[in-house]
């Protein structure tokens, strides 16, 4: 599904500061080697799109960055903090790193507003009034403030995904990770979610997006990363990546999806 954006390439706001650093990182599921010697440096404000065939390890990579999965070898350093067994560090990283899932993972027993204020109140120790104010601001930014009192089950997939984005933003994260945010959506709803993500990209947020939306990648990405069988095979500027792919696997992949 290709969604051609009309805005054209967004201006980038990359600083020299390093936000995420991954060194020689390896991960196994049992005896299966999922990620092999991954090296990756992400600067503050950089927007990265990760693509590749299914099973290539792209979701696992960003889940490792958020410490949802444990890696066995190598280092991941997020915002100056090394991920390891230290639980305090993990909780800290998770509050700094927002994540949006394919299946939204909203809490079905709470209203939209309750979903949004849960983190700010219980983790950031905000007062309820302040949390509600922040939540309403973000709901307005994702264009569904009137749905605040509904339950997730009463909304369309596109609306739920926008709520999920707002929920992450309420924690005021430094990095946003997106794990195939539009893959579970009906075609009509993909655009409304991508629009919100493009707008977010315009604010200078550091983003890593796993997606198959190549039109979206062309619009916002500073860098496109292609993964295959646990390796980062190729990374380049989107213009170069799409016009002039170098690796055979990349060429094959692009010819199949474009």
């Amino acid at each position, binding site marked *: 599904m290709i969604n051609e954006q009309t805005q054209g390439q967004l201006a980038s706001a990359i600083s020299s500061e390093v936000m995420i650093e991954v060194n020689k990182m390896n991960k196994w599921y049992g005896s299966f080697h999922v990620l092999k010697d991954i090296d990756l440096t992400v600067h503050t404000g950089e927007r990265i799109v990760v693509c590749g065939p299914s099973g290539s390890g792209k979701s696992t990579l960003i889940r490792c960055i958020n410490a949802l999965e444990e890696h066995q070898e190598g280092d991941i350093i997020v915002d100056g903090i090394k991920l390891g067994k230290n639980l305090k560090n993990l909780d800290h990283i998770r509050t700094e790193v927002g994540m949006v899932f394919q299946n939204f993972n909203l809490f079905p*027993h709470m209203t939209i507003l309750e979903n949004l204020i849960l*983190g700010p109140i*219980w983790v950031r120790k905000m007062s309820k009034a302040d949390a509600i104010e922040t939540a309403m601001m973000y709901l307005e930014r994702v264009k569904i403030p009137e749905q605040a009192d509904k339950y997730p089950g009463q909304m369309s997939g596109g609306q739920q995904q926008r709520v999920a984005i707002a929920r992450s933003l309420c924690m005021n994260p430094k990095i946003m990770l997106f794990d195939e945010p539009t893959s579970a959506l009906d075609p009509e709803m993909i655009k409304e979610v991508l629009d919100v993500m493009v707008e977010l990209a315009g604010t200078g947020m550091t983003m890593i997006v796993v997606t198959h939306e190549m039109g979206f990648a062309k619009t916002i990405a500073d860098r496109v990363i292609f993964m295959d069988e646990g390796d980062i095979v190729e990374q380049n500027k989107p213009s170069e990546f799409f016009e002039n792919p170098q690796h055979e696997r990349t060429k094959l992949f692009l010819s199949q999806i474009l």
Partner: protein
Amino acid sequence: MAIIKAEKTPDRSAPLFETSVIGWLHKNLFSSVFNTLLTILMLYIVYLTVSGVFVWGFADATFVAENRRECYDNSLTGACWAGVIHWLDNIFYGRYPRDQIWRINYGALLLVLWMAPLWMSRVKGKVLVGATVVVFYPFIAGYLFSGGDKGFFMQLMIASSIVAFAINMANMIAGLTKSLGLNAFIIQMLGQTNAPDKTQRNILLLLTALAFGAAYLWQMGWTVEGVSWTKWGGLFLTLVISGIGIASSLPGGIILALGRRSKLTVIRVLCVSFIEVFRSVPLITVLFMATTMFPLFMPEGFVLNKLVQVIIAVILFNACYMAETVRAGLQAIPRGQYEGAHTIGLGYWKTMGLVIMPQALKHMIPNIVGSFIGLLKDTTLVSIIGLFDILGMLRSISKDVPWIGLHKEPLIFGAILFFILCFSMSKYSRHLEVKLSAGKQH
């Protein structure tokens, strides 16, 4: 060539046989000759049963008599309810001193009032109401029921219970009249709405302290006479044992279930063995062990009363069953919910308490209430180890000289009582399910 439907098809009402009573009767009861015969046969069987019960239970029954002989003199084919009526106090209160029965009634009334706000949609702070019932009610009720001298600790707890109850009632009134929480209401009354948070909190703390002082002084002025637990009995005892069992087995079960899923091997193994041991032994065995074996392991002269032993046994036994119910509910929650909670920075306990448990408990309501009903009925086993719970009382009617041999009527009466209790629990659980799932098509 394009095929186009120019006009929208309007909605029509459903055919009559789908919606009318006659249509329903025809479809479900009289659709064929065989079906009609079956319906008539069933109606006849129902008639025979109901009329038989009616004649025995009402038409030919004796309600007023001094002993069983008078019942027979009145009618040979009817029930002798007079015996049950004569023993009604014993069935409800056991051998509790007759002039002290008001204490049990007040205790029950207190519980009903205390819990009432939980069912009022306008009242705020329901979690707190529920928590105070569990934490404070047992103390004041325990003293009301057993009486005697109050130790210093008991005095503190009774005063706290009184304050908690008073705050709860005031909160209920504030909620019903103004739709406000009590704290907001008081702050408004004192005109301190704009005062800083700290001042507001201090005012509320001061008021609570004053109330506590008053309650403490007041409760020093009275005591109620001691009633030994051996005099407790009847429905009262059944409800005490099953009430404590119900209130403690759920939290116990949750802790055991979490322990069973723990990543720490020692905790997991402990919980698993505990659960499996208690689940593979019949309750009656656990009760016998608690009352006869347990004292053997205790130091010389350490006497725990039998009632406490029985209650502990009931709690442990049911917590283990509950643990498995809770575990089943936890397994129904998709992994994404844990991940969603982790990504907004919630730790283990907050994830469990705010995100996972509320959803899991909702799934588990039918099973939990099923366990509660089982628990209530299982408490009748305590009559075997010599406590006079409701079953014990019903059976001793037949040993009472004027009513000697009267078995049927008391047991039927007991069955009706249990049916009312259990059926209302199960109805309430249905209601709760519907209420909690309202507006959440998932």
